């Protein structure tokens, strides 16, 4: 899941300055699940904004509208009908959703209410952990299901570095496990250490330009 967190209120308020009527668009996808930008969070933010501008004596009106996903055009039809009556849009989707919204309404200023933090998993309720950097060349099969790109602070492919601290902690923080210590332990338990005995050559980074993807089954459909 894409994990997001709300921007500081003051930053959001600053973006809204001078706008009299705004629609806050929530997202029912990832940001709803990670409790950052679903219907509930749209309501909370709108109330805070409304109160803050009221205190300032400024003319400001915000409504909320949450669509199923902001990253698919199929879910925008209802929004198309109402968006035109607002000066600007505030989005509580991830960075991808914000851009999709902005592309949909290119005449309208669109503002992000969230920061997109990472691709991650639920550690517990309301507690998330980054686990994938979308490097486009997954090596998890060799590294016992532990990602060296994401979980090693130096993204080493031939770790561990010389900084692994006692009890297998990363040099950057005593609270962070050393990814390569974990990889070593798990591979050893699985009797698969040969996976990391050989030098892993320099990788061809594939995520340095914007990616697009057409799944194999659809290649004909989109062929030019």
């Amino acid at each position, binding site marked *: 899941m894409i994990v997001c967190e709300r921007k500081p209120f003051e930053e959001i308020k600053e973006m809204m300055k001078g706008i009299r009527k705004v629609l806050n668009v929530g997202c029912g996808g990832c940001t709803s699940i990670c409790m950052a930008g679903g219907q509930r969070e749209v309501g909370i933010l709108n109330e805070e904004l409304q109160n803050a501008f009221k205190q300032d004596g400024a003319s400001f009106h915000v409504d909320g509208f949450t669509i199923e996903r902001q990253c698919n055009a199929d879910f925008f039809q209802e929004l198309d009908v109402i968006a035109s009556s607002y000066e600007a849009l505030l989005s509580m989707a991830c960075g991808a959703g914000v851009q999709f919204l902005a592309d949909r309404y290119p005449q309208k200023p669109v503002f992000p209410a969230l920061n997109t933090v990472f691709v991650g998993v639920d550690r517990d309720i309301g507690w998330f952990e980054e686990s994938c950097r979308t490097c486009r060349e997954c090596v998890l099969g060799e590294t016992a299901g532990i990602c060296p790109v994401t979980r090693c602070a130096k993204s*080493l492919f031939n770790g561990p570095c010389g900084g692994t601290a006692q009890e297998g902690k990363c*040099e950057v923080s005593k609270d962070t496990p050393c990814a390569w210590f974990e990889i070593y332990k798990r591979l050893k338990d699985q009797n698969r250490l040969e996976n990391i005995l050989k030098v892993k050559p320099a990788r061809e980074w594939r995520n340095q330009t914007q990616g697009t993807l057409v799944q194999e089954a659809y290649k004909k459909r989109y062929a030019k």
Partner: protein
Amino acid sequence: MSMKSGSRLEKILEAGHFAFTSELGPPQGANVEAIRKKASYLNGITDAVNITDNQTAVVRMSSWGAALIAIQEGLEPNYQMVCRDRNRIAMQSDILGAYAHGVRNMLCLSGDHQQFGNHPSTKGVFDIDSIQLISMVKGMRDDKKFLNGDEIDGAPQIFIGAAANPFAEPFEWRVHRLAKKVSAGADFIQTQCIYDMKMFREWMKQAGDMGLTEKVHILAGVTPLKSAGMARYMAKNVSGIIIPDDIIDRMVKAPKGAGAAAEEGIKICLEHIEELKEIKGVHGIHLMPIEWEHRVPEIAERAKLLPRPQV
């Protein structure tokens, strides 16, 4: 005999002499005199001097820049390069530039994480890692090819160094990491500071059993402790350094008074050097003085590492 680089360090090691290298940390500025002063303590008593590359992620004069000044001062630099600050384009380009100006030794490192330094919010590069860097330099030297396979017009003949830390977890994996560095192309190894002789002996035995000591020159790293406070601090806060309690005790119990603790630290260091000389497979000492360059001549003298062989 054909040399890989023809550096003095390579000649010393290939001739079977016991090598002695030290370290010079560039200044946090363009203070050339500071480099010349440090160099003056090391000139004539070392085979090569490591020029550190923005160590602890604190911005300093570039290691190649300081290495050129070291050459002017008569030192042979061991040019350190970390993977933290450059991508493969910058690295290969800097290697060519440094080589063109007379640099013949390199130490290939991952680098301390940027979070420790004075620009903690910078973007770490880590395009390649230290082992991939070793392999890249070897490819540039032996195959005369850039990492992408393109031909090099004037290949850099570099004596390739790598670091090894026997004192970081997982201990039983460390010798395999050494093996990976050797197979990637390391010609010599400089180890992390050794205080736990028992652990170091064990690691050297493993390296010997795996045949690694026949393939690579291992220089044992030492740093004299300056005070009990430094010993405690390093033991507690520096990842990958182990200082046994008896060493800390000796520093704590050192007589009070100016220079007494420092003298105890130097004594410990000298005792360790004597022991290290006797360990099979140890081909030299790498003394990291950490702003104590001026004490290196005295330590080298008392450790009977002088005069250096002429090669």
